[in-house]
C-alpha cells in the first residue's frame, strides 16, 4: 500500500518534462517564427495561414483540452517572450492579435479579433480561467482579467476587469491609485 501511495503521487520529473517540451516544441509550430525554448507539453492545434511570431520561452500546458492557434490568411499573430498558456486556450486571428511579454493565460481562455479591430494585450497581463476577450479590445500593461469575465471594452493598465460584460474594478494593482476609465 505504501508503494501504491508513492505511485499515486508520481509526477513526471522536471528534466524529463523540459526535454519533452523542447522536443515537442521543435515540431509544434508549423509556419510560425518561434524563439528559443518555446514549446508545448502536449499536442496543440496550430493552423497558421498568415504570419505568426512566437517569442522565447513560451509554454503551452497540457490538460483537458489542447490549445488552439488559428491564423487566417492575411492575419498576423505576435506573442511576446515568457508567456504561458494553460490548457484549452483558443486564439483565433483574422487580422491582428498582439500579445505582450510575460502574459499568463488561464485555461479555456478565448481570444478572437474581427472587424471591430485588432486585439492588443500589453505586457504582464493575466487572463484568468474561462475569460473571453472580444474583438477590438485593448488590455493595458499589468492588467488582470478575472475568471469568467467577458471583456467588451478596453481595460486600462494595472486594473482588474471582472463580470459579464466586464467592468473595471477600482483596485490598485501596483501600489499607486488605479486609473479610472
Amino acid at each position, binding site marked *: 500500500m505504501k508503494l501504491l501511495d508513492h505511485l499515486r503521487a508520481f*509526477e513526471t520529473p522536471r528534466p524529463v518534462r523540459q526535454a519533452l517540451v523542447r522536443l515537442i516544441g521543435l515540431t509544434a509550430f508549423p509556419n510560425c517564427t518561434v524563439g528559443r525554448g518555446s514549446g508545448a507539453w502536449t499536442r496543440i492545434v496550430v493552423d497558421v495561414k498568415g504570419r505568426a511570431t512566437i517569442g522565447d520561452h513560451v509554454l503551452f500546458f497540457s490538460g483537458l483540452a489542447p490549445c488552439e492557434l488559428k491564423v487566417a490568411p492575411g492575419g498576423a499573430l505576435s506573442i511576446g517572450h515568457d508567456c504561458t498558456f494553460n490548457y484549452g486556450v483558443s486564439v483565433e486571428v483574422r487580422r491582428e492579435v498582439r500579445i505582450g511579454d510575460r502574459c*499568463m493565460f488561464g485555461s479555456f481562455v478565448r481570444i478572437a479579433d474581427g472587424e471591430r479591430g485588432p486585439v492588443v494585450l500589453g505586457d504582464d497581463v493575466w487572463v484568468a480561467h474561462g475569460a473571453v476577450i472580444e474583438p477590438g479590445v485593448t488590455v493595458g500593461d499589468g492588467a488582470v482579467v478575472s*475568471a469568467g*469575465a467577458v471583456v467588451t471594452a478596453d481595460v486600462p493598465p494595472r486594473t482588474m476587469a471582472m463580470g*459579464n460584460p466586464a467592468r473595471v474594478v477600482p483596485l490598485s494593482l501596483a501600489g499607486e491609485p488605479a486609473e479610472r476609465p
Partner: protein
Amino acid sequence: MCCAGRGPGVPFGSLFETPHVSHFVVWTPHRKQWMHLGVFEDGRFRRETEGVSQRGPWHGTRVERPGAAGDTGDPRPRVGGLVATSTAGSRDAPKPAHLAEAGAVESRCVRPRIAPSHPFVSRLDALTTRLKLWRVAQMGPGVRVLGDVYVHGGGRITLGRDVTIDGRGVPVELHAEPGAELVIGDGVTFEPGASVEAQTRVDIGPGCHLGRLSKVLDNHFHPVRGDRLQRPTSKPVVLEAHVSVGARAIVLPGAFLEANVTLGPGVVISRRVKAGLHLVGSPPRVERPTA
C-alpha cells in the same frame, strides 16, 4: 453473486434470441431498491429502479415493485404499463424455490462495486473504472466513469458511493496537490469538462452536480499584486449537500455554498451563499429561492 442478466444455465446468446421482452428484477442491496432490467426485441436495453424513472426514453414512467399493493394479481412485473413476459430466455425453466413467491421473477445480488450499465459489461465496467481511478485513494461502491478522467497531483482524493463521472468528449479533472485533500461525497455527478482543483482542501457534499466545463478551485495560483510566480495561500472551498453548479460556472477560493444552492451557467462566486438560493449572471445575483 454472479453478474446480472443471465438466467441460471441459460446460454449466453439466448437472451437476445427470445422473441419477446425479457424482463427480470434484481435487488440492489447498496441502494435498497429493486432494479428492473429488460432487453427488448431490437436489442435496446432498459434499466429502471423502483419509483419514477428519471432519464432515458422512459422518463416519467412509474416502476413498481412486483407484488406491491395495488397489483392486479398478475405475478409478472409491470413496468410503465408494459407487462414483461418472461425471465431471461427461460420461460419454461422452473423457478428456483426461493424465488417462487409472488412477483419475484429473479433476484440476484448486483455486484456492489458498480451499477451495471449493461448486464454483460458490468464486470468490465468495474475493472475499467478501477483502472481509470487508480490514483484515487479511496472510493465507495457504485462509482462509475464514462469516458476519461484526469486524476493528478499526488494529494488524497476520496470518492463516496455512486459517484458518476461523465468524461465523454472532454475529460473530468480531479487535482489535489501533495498534502491536499479532495473529498467528494455520495452520489455526486460530474458532467464533461468539470474540474476540481484542491491545494489544501475542497469538500463536495452528497448529491452535488457539477456542470460542463465548470471549475472549483481553492487557490488563485497567482497573486493579483506582487510577484505573479508566487503561489498565494489557499482558502478551502465547501459545497454542501445537493449543490448544483452550472455549465462554465467557477467556484473560487473561499466559497461556501450551503445546501441546495444552484449556480446558473457562467456564475463566478467566491463567498458564502445561503441555503437554497439560485444565483445567475456575472456578477451573480439572486434569481429566486429554490424550493
